[in-house]
């Protein structure tokens, strides 16, 4: 297991802040926990840190991803190993990100900005930590539980996989290659704990987001989320369906600026330390991605923000 615990925050650009507020707060059910002109901070009901999503007005696409690390010693170790790898690495101070402590900012070989930190102000889940109810009665819309993972596009998947593995102790739960004879890496689904993926990437333009995903409880919650997307006129990219990769059930959909989101449920397995990495070959990759349709829609490999 890595000392990286999870994807802690996603920072995103949107063209219209009020439309984004409506989408993330009313349709998905996140809570706006702080706001400043042109910027919103939000969290899901089941998350205990101060926020998991930062939205800023102007443009579209990913600003950065934040991953929470379990100790300052591990943070320093990740910093040193990333420098040795040759990545651009810098420190940021407490308060530079609202309610977030000191941290390390890394530019991945794919130009994405990844921030590692150990502290964010504790807020608590909606249901609390003492004799909690199963869920809060005031859930709005989909009622997403937490931000679970992100899929980014990178020009050199093999290089990014090597970086994540050598510098941050991520492991590949599943990998996509050209064929069993041609090992060129097309994508990798990497874990820092036992969840099938905490960061995934596929071949594509550098420094772009494919999607970030919210955890939902089960398949029926996915179906209900789809109903809410129809009620709120949210464009659905694909689903409800299942991924072959990770076995998760899913809907891909778009926020009002065109950033792709996912609701994701039903982890297929625990990716323990001795988990045998799964391989997908390009001839079967469409089935890996959309297990029922077994073909990709045009957007899957063309829509990035």
């Amino acid at each position: 297991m890595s000392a990286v615990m999870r994807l802690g925050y996603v920072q995103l650009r949107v063209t219209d802040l009020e439309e984004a507020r409506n989408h993330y707060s009313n349709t998905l059910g996140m809570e706006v926990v702080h706001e400043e002109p042109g910027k919103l901070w939000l969290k899901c009901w089941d998350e205990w840190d101060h926020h998991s999503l930062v939205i800023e007005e102007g443009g579209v696409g990913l600003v950065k991803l934040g991953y929470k690390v379990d100790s300052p010693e591990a943070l320093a170790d990740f910093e040193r190993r990333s420098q040795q790898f040759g990545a651009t690495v810098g420190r940021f101070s407490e308060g530079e990100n609202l309610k977030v402590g000191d941290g390390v900012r890394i530019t991945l070989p794919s130009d994405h900005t990844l921030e590692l930190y150990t502290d964010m102000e504790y807020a608590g889940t909606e249901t609390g930590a003492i004799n909690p109810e199963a869920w809060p009665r005031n859930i709005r819309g989909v009622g997403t539980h937490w931000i679970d993972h992100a899929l980014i596009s990178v020009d050199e998947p093999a290089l990014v996989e090597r970086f994540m593995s050598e510098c941050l102790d991520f492991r590949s739960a599943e990998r996509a290659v050209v064929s069993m004879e041609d090992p060129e890496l097309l994508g990798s689904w990497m874990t820092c704990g036992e969840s099938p993926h905490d960061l995934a990437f596929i071949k594509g333009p550098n420094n772009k987001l494919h999607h970030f995903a919210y955890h939902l409880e089960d398949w029926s919650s996915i179906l209900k989320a789809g109903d809410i997307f129809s009620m709120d006129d949210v464009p659905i990219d694909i689903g409800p369906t299942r991924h072959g990769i990770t076995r998760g059930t899913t809907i891909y959909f778009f926020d009002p600026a065109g950033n792709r989101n996912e609701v994701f449920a039903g982890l297929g397995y625990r990716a323990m330390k001795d988990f045998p990495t799964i391989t997908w070959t390009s001839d079967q990759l469409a089935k890996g991605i959309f297990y029922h349709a077994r073909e990709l829609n045009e957007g899957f490999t063309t829509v990035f923000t």
Partner: protein
Amino acid sequence: MRVTILPDGVEVDAADDETLLRALARAGLRYRVGCKRGGCGVCKVQLKLGEVRYERPIAPQVLSDDERVEGICLSCRAVPLTNIVIELQEGDRLRRVLGFAFPTNHHHGKEDR
């Protein structure tokens, strides 16, 4: 507003404040689109004639000033201001996905004239 779609010459009507994408979808027509929300640029078409406005701010990384000058138009956000003529991207074509609902399909193209 009348929207003519090349190369087929199919014509549809766009209501006031209606985007090109919405007008085509309402007529049972489908073409290459992505996020439908102005974020990805997959639904760009060439504006051959007429004028459009954008119903929302468009991110410059999606549609650059140069592209605007060249008459490239982001169809999911573009609202016709006049009768317009657009041309689909090379390799794209119109698909009729609601044929039974639109037996004549608002089709006043070349072959009907």
